């Protein structure tokens, strides 16, 4: 039987890793909620956010945690542009088209990044790199704690935005009933752009946290986290935020557990096996509403 101490450690790493997935998944859910569109290229925005943060950090030496805001702002702009140029024209032409469009975007963004920044693996070092905080039997790096705090902060900020500001409420209205929103005079096209932008900004936040934690990155690093985020939101139900959080936790723990018992190669496969089993039983996900 597994040592409880080891189990706790595995769970802890799962929670920390989950932060990045939760940010990604929330962004996806936001975009889906308002536009009813799923962007398979979401991981590429994570990657761009990571590179923007790394580049600014290397040029100016500003604390990367502060750069996160710049990175997120940049991605609101980029996301808005992508929405306007690519997704808007095909809205309503069929779900398959959105998937194919995303594939095209993936080709462009990944290789564009390779052209600009080169395709070698890179990394940056956080200013708090060597500092650790003892918690129980673990020696937790300060960065991990900051990352969890920042994630929570972003999520709280998002919650306030959606519930306390007028635009945020308009966005929620659009996601709940698009036609109704149009009837009461909400500019749904503006909501589309905004939600896409914010969704991408969340991805940028995830990307920034990725590099700040010292993890290596290259132009192709966005695909794997994105696919996992997808599996998480499908598991938790498209559009459901609590579902995404539960899904993320289940994933983090299941993946690590599978790696421990069956070998590292099963990590990805297990994610999908869980997904497939859940979908066979409930075709709309754990918390999803039927009929998308």
């Amino acid at each position, binding site marked *: 039987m597994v040592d409880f101490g080891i189990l706790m450690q595995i769970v802890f790493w799962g929670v920390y890793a989950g932060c990045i997935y939760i940010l990604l998944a929330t962004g996806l859910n936001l975009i889906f909620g308002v536009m009813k569109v799923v962007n398979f290229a979401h991981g590429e925005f994570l990657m761009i956010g990571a590179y923007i943060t790394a580049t600014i950090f290397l040029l100016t030496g500003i604390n990367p945690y502060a750069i996160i805001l710049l990175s997120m702002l940049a991605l609101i702009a980029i996301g808005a542009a992508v929405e306007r140029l690519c997704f808007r024209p095909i809205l309503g032409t069929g779900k*398959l088209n959105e*998937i194919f469009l995303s594939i*095209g975007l993936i080709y462009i963004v990944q290789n564009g990044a390779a052209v600009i920044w080169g395709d070698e693996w890179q990394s940056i070092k956080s200013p708090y790199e060597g500092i650790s905080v003892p918690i129980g039997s673990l020696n937790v790096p300060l960065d991990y704690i900051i990352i969890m705090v920042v994630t929570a902060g972003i999520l709280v900020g998002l919650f306030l935005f959606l519930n306390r500001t007028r635009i945020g409420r308009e966005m929620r209205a659009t996601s709940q009933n698009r036609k109704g929103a149009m009837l009461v005079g909400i500019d749904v096209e503006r909501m589309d752009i905004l939600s896409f932008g914010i969704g991408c900004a969340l991805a940028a936040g995830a990307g920034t946290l990725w590099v700040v934690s010292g993890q290596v990155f290259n132009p192709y690093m966005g695909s794997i986290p994105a696919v996992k985020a997808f599996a998480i939101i499908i598991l938790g139900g498209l559009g459901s935020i609590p579902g995404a959080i539960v899904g993320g936790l289940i994933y983090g723990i299941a993946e690590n557990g599978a790696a421990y018992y069956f070998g590292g190669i099963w990590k990805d496969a297990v994610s999908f096996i869980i997904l497939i089993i859940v979908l066979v039983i409930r075709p709309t996900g754990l918390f999803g509403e039927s009929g998308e």
Partner: protein
Amino acid sequence: MSELDLHLKRGELVRYGTFAVIGIAVVAPFLSGNLFILNVLILMLIFIIYSSAWNLLAYSGQGSLGHAAFFGIGAYASTLIATKSGITPYITIFLGAVVAAFIGILIGLTCVRLKEWFLAMVTFGFAIIVQTIMVSILTPITGGWDGIASPRLLSPDIPGYQLIEYYSILVITIGCILFIGYIMKSRIGLAFSAIRENELEAQAAGVDPIKYRLLAFALSAYFAGVAGALEISHIGYITPEIFGVDMSFWPITYVIFGGLGTLAGPIVGTIVLTIIWDGLKLFGLTFGRYIIVGVLLILVIIFLPKGLVDLPNEIQKRWNARREKRMKAGTGVVKE
């Protein structure tokens, strides 16, 4: 200006055109006598089969992101049957594809109740699961990551074997395309179309969606398996990389480009993109090629949603629309 009518006498053009195409395909190897062009053509033919197979499944409204699973299973099955039993690859190709079709039905079963994105993710996941199984549990028979040697269609000792190989593959390709075309035009194809358009209405009209979804999977997986087995018997060595994401994405790109849901679409798309891809290589572009393909793909999706095969219709539509505008805006004098 006179009205532009590109709809020539249908029957004649199709007949002459098809002969022309086949004629060129037959003569092509002699137009420049080196092995390289032969290899390019062979790979192109194989991908035409593969793209058409994927297209068939998409025709039924099921867009798979993990078709490499069938491509690879067909390849592995054919290789294993051929090495264990000594039967010539000419036959094991079609046997191996049966295994792929069987797995296709299994995978299709998990997908019958799923909507597009879910289906996409599930098929994507299956490609990963299949690869994982191949390199872990099944390693004793598949050789794991090292892979195994695959018997070739013809022994290199036979003189002129490259040409024979090319023509064999050409014949097989034509056969597969004819078969797929027949399916698409038959009542089965009609049922696929109906399910794609509106599953509820199709069901109301008496079409059993589950039966046809599974049939689509089986057929599509079969031909993907044929393509995979063919490719590996040409290359001579199989490794698990065959299940990679790249292998799943290429047929999608080819088909979207050429025209989803048509018979000629996958063919046109494969040829055009192969030319662009290998052609751009001459200019020394590396990452740039992917970017260009991505841009072209997005342009096609937005402006030419029915693909390249629809180009003449699009041109005709816009030309006539412009002509109408001019006639209405002008003083009525028609310039000739």
